[in-house]
């Protein structure tokens, strides 16, 4: 199946997802390209309205049959999801690509037991008896760390805690052994200690199953913890794309600088003031001309109005590191060198022995 040349699990090329509305065309995703290899994790970061979730729904083919205008290519293991017929997309969904949603309570059906929901998903893609599917559901629940899985399989979602519901969602997503797992804000609704458990679980399961993972989040900490590659989105476009080490060590886009500077950090000395990004994210109906970030960019004036006229292309500035900015690289390096405070020696965390 698929073209033999396809090495990546997923390759997205020039993806555009537009929604016609009464007020005008909403350009939710506007020319986005990226790829994920097997066994790799891509982190997609951005604020609300940057197009992260719309992209993930596009990969699942969930815009088919809606008013959304999708163009570009989404190659999922050699098959173009954008062009594939609806029936084929339905086959791919669940077996080849699965999704973990943000809010496990509203994503699980309150009327059916957790077990039944996993069994249903499994039996759609595998011709097995109910009994075998049930055994598989118990095994999956056990795998994701639900205690007494054999009895909890008959519980309803409301009988699970938030962390357990998210584990059940993960069990359901992994039940058909997908090669690509998309996690859309998987831990945003959870407490930090549970978040840490779930992030560990996702990376353990990835090692075990060797699947590709896309993790969508607004939390740069979560991305740094899990991702091999990072894609920073702003107003439907990628503004920075590269390996996690490169993006976090040498961020090249003023928006990424802004994101990093605006979050208070536990691993640095306490700063007196945070450095927020001025203004608010733009309306997707009336995007600013040129670089969509220029009205909020502190350095837009440095290149004589070019940011207001031209959309910057995503260019390689270092190996495996692309940024979309008009400012010359040397200038950005200079600004960055002047503004960065060196990290504190001791991260201030003195945890005891691990209690896993």
């Amino acid at each position: 199946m698929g073209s033999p040349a396809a090495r990546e699990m997923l390759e997205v090329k020039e993806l555009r997802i537009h929604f016609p509305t009464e007020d005008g065309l909403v350009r939710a995703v506007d020319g986005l390209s990226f790829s994920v290899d097997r066994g790799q994790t891509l982190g997609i970061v951005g604020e609300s309205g940057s197009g992260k979730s719309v992209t993930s729904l596009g990969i699942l083919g969930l815009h088919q049959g809606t008013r959304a205008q999708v163009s570009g290519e989404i190659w999922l293991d050699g098959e173009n999801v954008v062009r594939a017929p609806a029936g084929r997309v339905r086959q791919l969904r669940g077996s080849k690509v699965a999704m973990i949603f943000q809010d496990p309570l509203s994503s699980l059906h309150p009327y059916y037991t957790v077990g039944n929901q996993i069994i249903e998903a499994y039996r759609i893609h595998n011709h097995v008896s109910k009994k075998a599917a049930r055994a598989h559901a118990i095994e999956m629940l056990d795998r994701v760390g639900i205690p007494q899985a054999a009895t909890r399989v008959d519980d309803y979602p409301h009988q699970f805690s938030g962390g357990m519901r998210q584990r059940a969602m993960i069990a359901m997503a992994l039940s058909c052994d997908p090669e690509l797992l998309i996690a859309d804000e998987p831990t945003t609704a959870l407490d930090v200690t549970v978040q840490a458990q779930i992030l560990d679980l996702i990376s353990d399961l990835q090692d075990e199953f060797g699947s590709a993972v896309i993790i969508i989040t607004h939390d740069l900490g979560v991305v740094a913890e899990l991702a091999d590659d990072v894609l920073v989105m702003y107003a439907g476009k990628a503004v920075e794309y590269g390996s996690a080490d490169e993006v976090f060590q040498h961020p090249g886009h003023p928006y990424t600088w802004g994101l990093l500077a605006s979050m208070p950090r536990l691993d640095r000395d306490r700063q007196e003031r945070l450095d927020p990004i001025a203004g608010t994210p733009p309306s997707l109906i009336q995007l600013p001309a040129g670089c969509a970030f220029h009205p909020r960019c502190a350095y837009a004036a440095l290149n004589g109005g070019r940011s207001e006229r031209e959309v910057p292309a995503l260019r390689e500035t270092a190996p495996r590191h692309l940024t979309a900015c008009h400012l010359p690289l040397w200038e950005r390096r200079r600004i960055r060198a002047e503004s960065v405070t060196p990290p504190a020696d001791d991260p201030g965390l003195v945890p005891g022995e691990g209690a896993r």
Partner: protein
Amino acid sequence: MSTAPDQGGTAASGPPGALLTVTGLQKYFPVTHGIILRRQVGAVQAVDGLDFTVTQGETLGLVGESGCGKTTTGRLLTRLLEPTSGRIVFGGRDISHLRPGQMRPLRRNIQMIFQDPYSSLNPRHTVGSIVGAPFRLQRVEPEQGIKRSVQELLELVGLSPEHYNRYPYEFSGGQRQRIGIARTLALRPKLIVADEPVSALDVSIQAQVINLLEDLQDELGLTYVLIAHDLSVVRHTADRVAVMYLGKIVELASSAQLYSRPRHPYTVALLSAVPSPDPGSRGRRTRTRLSGDVPSPLSPPPACRFHTRCWKAQEICRTTEPPLAELAPGHRAACHFPENT
């Protein structure tokens, strides 16, 4: 380090400079069964014996996971809930059991900032009427009139006076939170209880609102009780931090002490669970992972409530409740085997 004698906090009137003194604060929510013959079958011990003070001009952070009672505490301090027992002394006056009518004149001194900027503003009212509501409710006539005062408040929080006649839907989340803050500030309260003021906002907007809260504190000499689950936000804004677990304070210290030398194992675990935005630290950090979930506050574990998830738990932790003892000046922790000693 030996246990220093208990001082402050429990005194009836509170230490000098204390704006708010809380002693033995408890809130149990009854759980009933049956429709006609309702009988109480248990109680959710949401808040179970809190002692702390808040000094004039400081920020006290309350952190903990969901269900630890931090929001209930905030609602008790603002007297939106009636405590089951314990005392809340605000500005020298016991407000623990005041009736709504008696409480009303005090409300101008104690105000609240809410989490969700979407549901905390009435969509059918203009910004002017939302921000001006406290004046009307408290029958306060500002010298230059309500409209002028509201416009000044809008400017104070970084909005424009022209926004007076607009409706909430015309604003973004961050701007709405500013509208909520303007309303909170209308009557120049002494104490502001901010319940997750930035958790519904985007990262870049969060920083704007945090800076605004800090500027307002400097400018107007406000006192904050900041309730948040985000440990890095609390570290950034709070002077002192109380860590809560299942309705109890397990550690209370200055922000600097708590984050550099956490004493309670729960605090240690909580801090090590925060992901760091630095991929280079992935291998270096030793992590303390808690297993399982927080037990139900309906029947919390006896003695030390954390013993079911604690890796240091011994027999004594299951039988004797550790007191919130002062381990270093200004640093209290409730643990039989504290860390970093």
